C-alpha cells in the first residue's frame, strides 16, 4: 500500500513540523506532540473527561442524526420537485455561506441553553450541505436509470430502494462527510458559549486559563475522531459503490 505509506510520511512530516514549531514558539504557546499525547492520555484516564466526551457526543449524535435524515429527506424532495429545488437552491447556498456564529445569540434565545441549543447549532451547520448534496444527487441521477426501472416494471418501492437509493448514494455520502465535520464544528462552537460540560466547554476553560496542552490534547482528540470517521465513510463509500 504505497498510497497510505505516502500519507503516513506526510503525517510524519506534519509531526516534525509540529515539533519544530513547538521549539520555535515555545512550550507556552504550542505543546509538543509528546506533551499533547501525554496530556490526552492523562485526561482520558479521568472519568470526568469521559463525561464531557459523552456530553458532546450526545449533542453531536442528535444533531448529526437530524442533519442526516432531515438533509437527505429535504434534499430528495427538492431534487424531485424541480421548481422547488430551483427556487430553494440560491437561498440555501446563501444560508450556507453566512457565518452562522452571528446567529448564535438568536439560537440561545430560541432554544434556551443546554443541549437543545447545541443540537440546533450543530444542525444549522450540517443540514444545508447534506441537503444540497442530496438534491444534486437526485438531479444528476442518470435519467436512463429511471427508464430502466420503468422498463422492468418495478413497483415504486422497488424503484426507490433498489435503483434510486443506490444510484444517489455516493453523492449523498460526500454530502454526509462534509455535514459530519461541520455538525461537529457547530456543536463545539455551541458548547464554547453556554454550557457546563462538553469538550467545547473544556476548550473555553483551557483557552481562558492558557492551558495549551489541554487545548492541543482536545484538538488532537477531535481531529483523530473526525479524520477516522471520515476515512471510514470513504471506505464505506468505496465498498458500496465500486466506482
Amino acid at each position, binding site marked *: 500500500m504505497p498510497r497510505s505509506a505516502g500519507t503516513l510520511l506526510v503525517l510524519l512530516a506534519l509531526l516534525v513540523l509540529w515539533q519544530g514549531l513547538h521549539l520555535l514558539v515555545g512550550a507556552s*504557546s504550542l505543546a509538543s506532540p509528546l506533551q499533547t499525547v501525554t496530556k490526552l492520555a492523562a485526561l482520558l484516564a479521568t472519568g*470526568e473527561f469521559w463525561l464531557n466526551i459523552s456530553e458532546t457526543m450526545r449533542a453531536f449524535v442528535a444533531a448529526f442524526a437530524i442533519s442526516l435524515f432531515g438533509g437527505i429527506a429535504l434534499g430528495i424532495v427538492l431534487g424531485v420537485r424541480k421548481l422547488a429545488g430551483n427556487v430553494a437552491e440560491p437561498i440555501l447556498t446563501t444560508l450556507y455561506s453566512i457565518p452562522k456564529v452571528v446567529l448564535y445569540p438568536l439560537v440561545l434565545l430560541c432554544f434556551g*441553553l443546554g443541549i437543545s441549543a447545541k443540537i440546533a447549532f450543530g444542525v444549522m451547520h450540517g443540514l444545508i450541505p447534506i441537503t444540497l448534496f442530496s438534491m444534486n444527487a437526485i438531479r444528476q441521477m442518470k435519467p436512463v436509470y429511471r427508464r430502466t426501472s420503468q422498463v422492468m416494471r418495478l413497483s415504486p418501492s422497488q424503484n426507490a430502494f433498489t435503483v434510486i437509493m443506490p444510484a444517489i448514494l455516493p453523492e449523498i455520502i460526500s454530502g454526509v462527510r462534509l455535514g459530519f465535520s461541520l455538525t461537529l464544528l457547530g456543536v463545539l462552537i455551541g458548547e464554547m*458559549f*453556554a*454550557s*457546563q460540560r462538553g469538550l467545547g466547554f473544556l476548550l473555553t476553560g483551557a483557552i*481562558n*486559563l*492558557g492551558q495549551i496542552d489541554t487545548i492541543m490534547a482536545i484538538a488532537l482528540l477531535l481531529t483523530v475522531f473526525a479524520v477516522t470517521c471520515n476515512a471510514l465513510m470513504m471506505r464505506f463509500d468505496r465498498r458500496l459503490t465500486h466506482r
Partner: protein
Amino acid sequence: EEISVTQWGASLYGAPYAVAMEKGLFKQAGIDITGIIGSGGGGTTVRNILASATPYGEVAVSAALAAKAQGLDLIIVNTGTRSVAEASMVVMPNSELKGVEDLAGKKVAITSPKSVSEMLLLMVLREKGVDQSKVQRVAAGGYVPALTMLEQNAVVGSVLIEPLSIIRKDKYRTLYKAGDILKPMTTSVGITTRKFAQENPEKLKAIIAGRRAGVQAIYKDPAETAKIIEKLYKLDAPIAKEAVDNMIPPKMWSEGEFNVEELNRMVEGLKLIGEVKSDVDWSTVLDKTYLPADLQAKQ
C-alpha cells in the same frame, strides 16, 4: 435543581456554591442544588438564568444593570462578591516600571473594550491621579492573549486575574493589585425574575441561606475550601490553596447583604467605561425581602 454562576470554574466567584454543595449546606437550608451552569459571564449568564427552570444566578453587576436597563423583569436579591482582590496588573520581571504612575505614556493590554479589566484599570488610574488618556489601552481579546502581547513586548503591562496570575506568577512581576488600591465594591449580585421570586419565595430564601452558610464555612476553614475548589475546579493543590488564601483577608465573599456604598462604587466604575450613564436608583432594583432577617437590617 440547577442555578447559574458567572465564570464558574474559572474564577472564585463560585466558591461559596462549591462549598455549600459539597458540604450539603443547601440541603440543610431546604433546597437541593445539583449543578451549577457556568458561562463566559456577562449577559450570557443572565440569559442562562432566564432560560433555567430555577432562574436564580450570580452575575456581574454590569450585566444585571444592563439587563435591567433593557427592560428585563429582574430583581437583585443578594450580593455575591465585594472585592477586586483577584485582579492585578503584571509587567515583565525585568521591567523598569515601578508603580501605577509609570504607566503614563505607555501601552497596556486589557481583555476587551468596556470590560471589567478596563474598568478596574481606569479606576486605579483615577485613584492614583494618572490621566487615563495618557495610557493607551489595547484590547487583546482575553487574559492569555494579553500576556502573550506582554511577552512579545507589544505592551509594557497586562491586566491579569486569579487563578491565572497564581499559575503563572513566576513569569511576571506584579505591578499592582487592584484590591490594594481600590476600596471594596460589589462585583457580583444574585438575581432572579420577579415572577420566580413571587411564586417561590421559600426556594429563593433557601438558596440565599445556603450560599451564606457556604461563605461562613469558607472563612471558618479555608484549607477545606481549598480542597473543594481543587476538586471542583480541577486546579493543582498549591494553586487552589493560594487562590483561596488570597481572598480571605479582603473578605471577597459577602454573606449577601446590600451595601449601597459598595454598590455605588461599582457604578462609578461602570460610568468610567460608559456602560452606565447615570446614577442607579437602587430601590427599583433591589429586593431585600429574601435575605435572612439579620442581613436585611444591615446597610
